[in-house]
């Protein structure tokens, strides 16, 4: 029986070889010098049938702790939100899923209108003028935003809040190092916010990146940073990892932010062990032509009918090559479509309400923990995440909870050695009062 993905029969192959004028397929590979050809069979597992593969994957998946079975109180850049069944259903339509970058707009209007709508929803979410067709994730988007600022200001130093996601800061260092860009950190204060006074004394800075809600879940006052950095002729860059927070918080655009980079995974995208997520990147009009990656715009066809195309390609690598604003080619298009479907499903009213529910639940947990005597080190307002200090020896409790299918937050000592024994807890709409009460009971038992 032929492998189901390979249609050619022996007869097909024979007919084609005759037309080409060779006797065997291997002859075609004589175009490769003998010395370059591999003679050994590939040492890979024997081909599995569809059914063996299903069983194999089921077994791998069974070792994991999915949020449908476990109560996972971790956010920290990947959030557990309900995803309506309609969204993955629509996304699975082959017309969306199996197409590629819309190089031929006449037969790609579905992708193009969808991404145009995505761009628009993102600008409305963040209060910005322009949003790109997506980036890989928040960290890479934020790095590109900093590079934009360096290009624009021609200054070679960037400041990054110590409360930007630690992994975002890692990626920034990866991107900036070889480009010779200095990265300085703005430390955090006792209130769990970035220390504005530290920024005030810094000089020669192209941009400052501040995350809100920050890694401790605390909402930052972006305007105050914008005022300081603008006075220094630098750019204000906002970042975030929890997009749902904008249902309740003042958007970055109204706080003087020039460029926003963030993670869009919260917008209906499965956590999928960290990826693919969605990099959101938006700016004011002033930086439109500095933006990396694809942009979709409106135009008209020969009959004057509205249509959509990829545009401003002059920024991009396939036109500008080494002078491009970025090397990005494939982005996370389907994830952008996914996020747009999710935002459309929620609507403005739903988005706001969902954010409120997240906040309510997190505040409930916070209050219950305080009542139980657990210490909350940072008093500033938070959205759906916050830091707690659990009593010494909590790691044993943590393991006990794990065996009860509860993941009791993220230990912070790994990221902030001074916060050994502290945990970052997240509560979304997916956890019930019963789940929360159980956690409180268990951690204080």
């Amino acid at each position: 029986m032929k492998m189901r993905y390979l249609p050619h029969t022996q007869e097909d192959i024979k007919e084609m070889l005759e037309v080409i004028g060779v006797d065997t397929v291997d002859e075609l590979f004589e175009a490769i010098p003998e010395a370059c050809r591999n003679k050994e069979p590939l040492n890979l597992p024997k081909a599995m049938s569809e059914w063996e593969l299903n069983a194999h994957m089921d077994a791998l998946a069974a070792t994991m702790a999915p949020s449908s079975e476990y109560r996972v109180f971790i956010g920290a850049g990947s959030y557990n939100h309900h995803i309506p069944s309609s969204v993955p259903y629509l996304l699975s339509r082959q017309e969306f899923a199996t197409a590629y970058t819309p190089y031929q707009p006449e037969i790609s209007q579905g992708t193009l209108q969808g991404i145009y709508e995505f761009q628009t929803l993102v600008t409305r979410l963040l209060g910005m003028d322009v949003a790109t067709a997506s980036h890989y994730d928040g960290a890479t988007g934020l790095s590109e935003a900093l590079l934009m600022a360096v290009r624009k200001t021609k200054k070679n130093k960037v400041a990054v809040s110590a409360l930007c996601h630690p992994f975002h800061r890692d990626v920034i260092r990866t991107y900036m190092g070889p480009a010779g860009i200095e990265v300085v950190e703005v430390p955090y204060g006792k209130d769990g916010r970035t220390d504005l006074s530290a920024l005030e004394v810094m000089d020669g800075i192209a941009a400052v990146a501040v995350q809100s809600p920050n890694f401790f879940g605390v909402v930052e006052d972006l305007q105050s940073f914008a005022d300081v950095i603008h006075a220094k002729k630098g750019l204000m860059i906002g970042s975030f990892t929890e997009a749902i927070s904008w249902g309740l918080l003042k958007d970055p655009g109204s706080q003087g932010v020039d460029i926003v980079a963030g993670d869009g995974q919260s917008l209906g995208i499965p956590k999928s062990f960290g990826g693919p997520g969605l990099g959101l990147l938006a700016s004011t009009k002033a930086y439109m032509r500095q933006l990396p990656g694809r942009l979709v715009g409106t135009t008209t066809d020969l009959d004057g009918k509205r249509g959509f195309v990829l545009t401003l390609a002059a920024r991009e690598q396939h036109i500008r090559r080494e002078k491009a604003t970025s090397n990005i080619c494939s982005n996370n298009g389907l994830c952008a479509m996914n996020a747009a479907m999710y935002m459309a499903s929620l609507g403005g009213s739903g988005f706001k309400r969902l954010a409120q529910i997240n906040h309510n639940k997190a505040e409930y947990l916070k209050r219950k923990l305080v009542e139980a005597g657990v210490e909350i080190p940072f008093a500033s307002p938070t959205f759906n995440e916050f830091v707690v200090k659990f009593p010494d020896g909590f790691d044993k409790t943590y393991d006990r909870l794990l065996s009860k299918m509860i993941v009791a937050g993220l230990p912070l000592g790994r990221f902030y050695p001074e916060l050994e024994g502290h945990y970052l807890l997240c509560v979304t709409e997916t956890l019930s009062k019963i789940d929360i009460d159980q956690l409180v009971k268990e951690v204080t038992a």
Partner: protein
Amino acid sequence: LNEPLLWEKGKKGRCGFSMPECDVDEVSFDGELAGDGPDFPDLSEVEVVRHYTRLSTWNFGVDTGMYPLGSCTMKYNPKVNERQASLPGLAEAHPLLPEVRSQGALKLMYDLEQYLMELTGMDAVTLQPAAGAHGELAGILMIYAYHKKKGETRTKMLVPDTAHGTNPASGALCGYKPVPVPVNEDGIMRVEDVRGLMDEETAGIMVTNPNTLGLFEKNIREICDIVHEKGGLVYGDGANLNAVMGYVKMGDIGVDVMHFNLHKTFSTPHGGGGPGSGPVAVNKTLTPFLPVPRVEKVQDHYHLVTDYPDSIGRMMTFYGHFGVMVRAYSYILSMGGEGLKEASAHAVLNANYIKERLKDTFHLAFDQTCMHECVFSDAKQEEYGITTLDVAKRLIDYGFHPPTIYFPLVVHGALMIEPTETETKEDIDNFIDTLKAIAVEAKESPELLKNAPTRSKVRRLDETTAARKPCLCG
């Protein structure tokens, strides 16, 4: 069917989401930092479903028909792999779960790395890069780190004329000035040219092999030797790996570092532009520089390890596009080693068959045995005032996705056809016959081509105005 924009639909107060009841007290978020929430339209579920269903009908996907987009490997995307990626154990796994509850995902990543090593004869793999270009960047960063570790600062990078635009752009992020290497009359690089250009200021060379003309760089071994002699490294762009699986191991012929496009070679859906996945394989020299975290296996237990002092660091927030890896891993397990080799064999067979049958109709840029794709031009149609663009648009009217056009840049009016191995001979014959018919039309009724497409949602679009007066949101 037409379909308005999202915000031309809906009514305030509708909702397409099942809002859970809140089982705890309301706690308002007040003060300066409170906002009003986004101005999104409110739609019911059926409105959302119809909106996207209608939009989808304006798109052409691989299941719609032949999609011979050169350099993009638009092969069939198996449905069963979607099942695997959506298993709750994988799709609903948080990336920061304790290691003891992440073993399946880590094992999958570890094994996928092993398979990619075997396919290339390389010594280590990182799965972290998010896409091909991101993999290039990771590779270049490692080359940079390698030279830096040796105390050298090199400033140039050899990049052939046939390269994808991502190659010079990736180099630029490390400050490398691209030095073009011309193609010879056979469409590949000359040894002498490389010898003349390579020096100790040059960090290395970025080679796509087979190159974007669909031709194998026959001088690759000599080129690698020259580059190595001058202390440089060889970067392999794996965009065209679908041509040579099992036939060539890049690590064995001198390549030091290369990326994969998992979504191309290993058949994951391209998603209208992504997500892709761009793992990078390296030889021993570059292994210390790999991004962190790395997946390691100690006595059947898998760990994420970050403790590598020479590492270039982290490339993404978490571990890369795991969901894409799941599909690629499933594809490799479904095909096995022999199946992958057969896929390459058929991909090359199909491209040569098309080349042979069409070379009298369209000008063939380089007439020799090609690998998985072949590049024609519009030279023969010029006399009728017909361009590659016209031919491409006319193909749409016949129900085919056009090939890649105007790339590679070294061929004027290029028409770059990559059939892949999943097309049937009947569909390929139909495609060939259609192109022949279009060539006749070009001569006899060129207006049919000029007016094409006519059967699509819209006719040709005004891209100039779009760029001059950009309207990027509504």
